[in-house]
């Protein structure tokens, strides 16, 4: 008994009734008078120089009010991690001279109706000069590979002078030399979409006092405000974000992508502007979960103790960094998984390729690593003809163990969840395994 009255009780979720009866108001329920619609003309090439952009036919389209290009954006670089000191900024709001992935925005067409905005966007004529593109993370890192992003200068994000985020703990080479078995396997994932019910978008409404009220489904109101103000070059207090009700985020609404260009459109037209992704944009243009390639090499003793783990991780960041440098560091911190392994070596590469930039998604840096780590554990158990749960229990980390990133573990309970899961499915564990505890050494 905890003695709590409200904590620990199954209070009904406050938005549940509104959601299931269709009464919850989302940003798209707003319909301010004079609303304009913004749609993007996007790159049809993976990597190309923009030799010319002809908007003359688009401008003649009935209902088209204005077309924005890079020249219209005050500070035409996104600033995703600037405020926590991570640079360089590497991605234009509207393409400037070069496109680096298929789907990259080139022109923003503002029109009286959604249909006119689409029609105008389709009539933008872009003259491309194709450049060599690279799609595979290991090919991108090879000498002579085409450079994806000149702002980054290399096809990898540079961590304080290093070409990857590193973990160095103990001596894995010695562990391999002394091991009874060495196992090395490789894992791969593909980009995954957040698939929210409500797509990413915003409505910007100019106010009488010159401020902009931004109705958004962002996951982070002040983060959106700060980044948008930096791009607009306006004082922060010129903007107001109204949000808080979101039809699914999963990390896909952390990048600040739709608000800055919509604000520019609202400022230049003096009218409310709506920019919301359609489902195709949400799936093909909005940043997905990164594809990852993971190679794990383990030193294992015959009793099942893992004495060394070496991990090489390639995170496919796509054409721009977004939040991937952060996610790659988070991935490094997660290694070698919830196990006390005395020797750990990891190189975690954040790699640029000519594809849709990836970014945050639920379990950022961890989800795909867990697929690899836990497949690896199963394979080791099979190779040693051991019970897969006993192998995990033998290696489980406990309170006080020093993790590979040199922080003492606390609040551990891996052993307990394994014991509970075993009990749930009637998987018998010998007494010594049932008696183990995370908080006793």
């Amino acid at each position, binding site marked *: 008994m905890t003695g709590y009255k409200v*904590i620990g009780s199954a209070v009904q*979720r406050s938005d549940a009734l509104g959601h299931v009866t269709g009464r919850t108001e989302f940003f798209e329920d707003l319909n301010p008078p004079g609303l304009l619609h913004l749609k993007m003309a996007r790159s049809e090439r993976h990597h190309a120089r923009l030799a010319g952009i002809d908007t003359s036919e688009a401008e003649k389209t009935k209902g088209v009010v204005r077309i924005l290009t890079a020249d219209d954006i005050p500070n035409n670089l996104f600033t995703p991690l600037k405020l926590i000191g991570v640079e360089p900024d590497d991605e234009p709001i509207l393409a400037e001279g070069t496109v680096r992935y298929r789907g990259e925005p080139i022109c923003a067409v503002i029109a009286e109706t959604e249909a006119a905005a689409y029609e105008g966007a389709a009539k933008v004529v872009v003259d491309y000069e194709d450049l060599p593109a690279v799609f595979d993370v290991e090919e991108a890192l090879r000498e002579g590979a085409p450079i994806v992003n000149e702002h980054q200068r290399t096809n990898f994000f540079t961590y304080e002078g290093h070409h990857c985020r590193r973990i160095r703990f103990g001596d894995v080479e010695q562990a391999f030399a002394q091991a009874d078995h060495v196992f090395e*396997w490789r894992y791969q994932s593909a980009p995954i979409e957040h698939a929210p019910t409500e797509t990413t978008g915003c409505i910007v409404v100019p106010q009488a006092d010159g401020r902009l009220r931004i109705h958004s489904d962002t996951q982070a109101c002040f983060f959106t405000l700060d980044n948008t103000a930096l791009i607009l070059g306006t004082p922060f207090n010129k903007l107001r974000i109204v949000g808080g009700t*979101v039809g699914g985020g999963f990390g896909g609404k952390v990048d600040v992508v739709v608000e800055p260009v919509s604000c520019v459109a609202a400022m230049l037209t003096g009218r409310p502007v709506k920019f919301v992704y359609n489902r195709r944009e949400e799936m093909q243009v909005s940043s997905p979960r990164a594809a990852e390639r993971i190679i794990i090499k383990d030193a294992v003793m015959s009793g099942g103790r893992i004495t060394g783990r070496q991990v090489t991780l390639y995170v496919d960041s796509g054409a721009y960094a977004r939040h991937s440098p952060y996610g790659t560091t988070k991935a490094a911190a997660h290694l070698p998984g919830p196990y006390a392994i005395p020797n750990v070596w990891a190189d975690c590469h954040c790699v640029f390729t000519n594809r849709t930039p990836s970014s945050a998604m639920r379990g950022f840096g961890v989800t795909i690593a867990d697929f690899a780590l*836990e497949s690896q554990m199963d394979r080791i158990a099979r190779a040693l003809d051991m019970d897969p749960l006993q192998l995990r229990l033998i290696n489980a980390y406990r309170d006080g163990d020093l993790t590979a990133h040199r922080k003492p573990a606390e609040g551990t*309970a891996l052993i307990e969840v394994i014991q509970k899961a075993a009990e749930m499915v009637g998987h018998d564990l010998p007494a010594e395994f049932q008696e183990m505890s995370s908080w006793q050494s």
Partner: protein
Amino acid sequence: MAKLKGRGYASVNYPTGMNLGGDPSQALIHSTTTGTFVVSLSSVDLGQGLKTVVAQCAAEVLGLPFENILIDTADTDTGPHCMGTFASRGTHRVGNAVIMAAAEAREVMLAVAADELEVDPGDLETDGTGFIAVKGAEEKRIHITDLALAAHFKHGRTISGRGIFLKEQSTVVPETGEMDPDSCQAHACTVAVVEVDDETGVVEVLEMHNAYEIGRALNPAMVTQQVEGGAWMGMSHALFEATEPYYPARDHGPADFTEYLMPGPADIARQYSVILERPADNGPFGAKGIGEMTANAPIPAIANAIFDACGVRVETMPFTPERVLRDLDALKGTT
């Protein structure tokens, strides 16, 4: 041709709180003259229930009914700063900020009640019904609605409080990776039971057994909702989803839900979920948070169950019928 059944395991940990810290959130709380406490935030509820759990935190600290708490959030003109809803930080950061704000407001509430009842504040208690009463003399009490009116019109006091939570930013030692990345580690073990059709390569997930340890479960029903919803998402990641199905080729990108498939009602596994509680010292009432982690363990559990069922070791996500069938054929030597 047969349907082959197998069972697979996966156990994981998950770091809650923004990686490396430096991500503050604030909360302000005040009582209106109705005795309703408004919690002002700029945090976003993605549908996971943040507004509900932080209202529970405020009600618990104030010792008032849940219905006496209103959450007013996500307007940057009126709500104090929040870094955002991501990185399994909402419950942990915002919960802690709300507890701090509510504790300050509770102190004022008891001080005003003490004036009103002419007793010492230390002799007062709350019981969750809306009354502030003298310990041991429960008939000597005042309801929060009357107290809020008296505070405003008679005592000239605001019943209010301020809260913030900040985990200081940690920097990474670039040579070794030494860092302080997380606030808590939550844990899970998932057991998946699958059936593999060796003619079609289709994998069906029959059962998922989920054991989770997430510190304190502030709202057990919403925890279970996260566990089961996340298990569905993990199953979907494992078997169905990719925006570039032949990665690294850019071809065949789906554009809508008829091309980007996810499990429908008939695909959903039976789920059995158990929550263990090991409260964390730095969490709100010991909660660690369970925002993101629930999609993780199901993926390798399903991969390992596929191996158990048919001997195919899936190394590439998603585990589509095409991939499973090609590997099955290779195993049988019939390619």
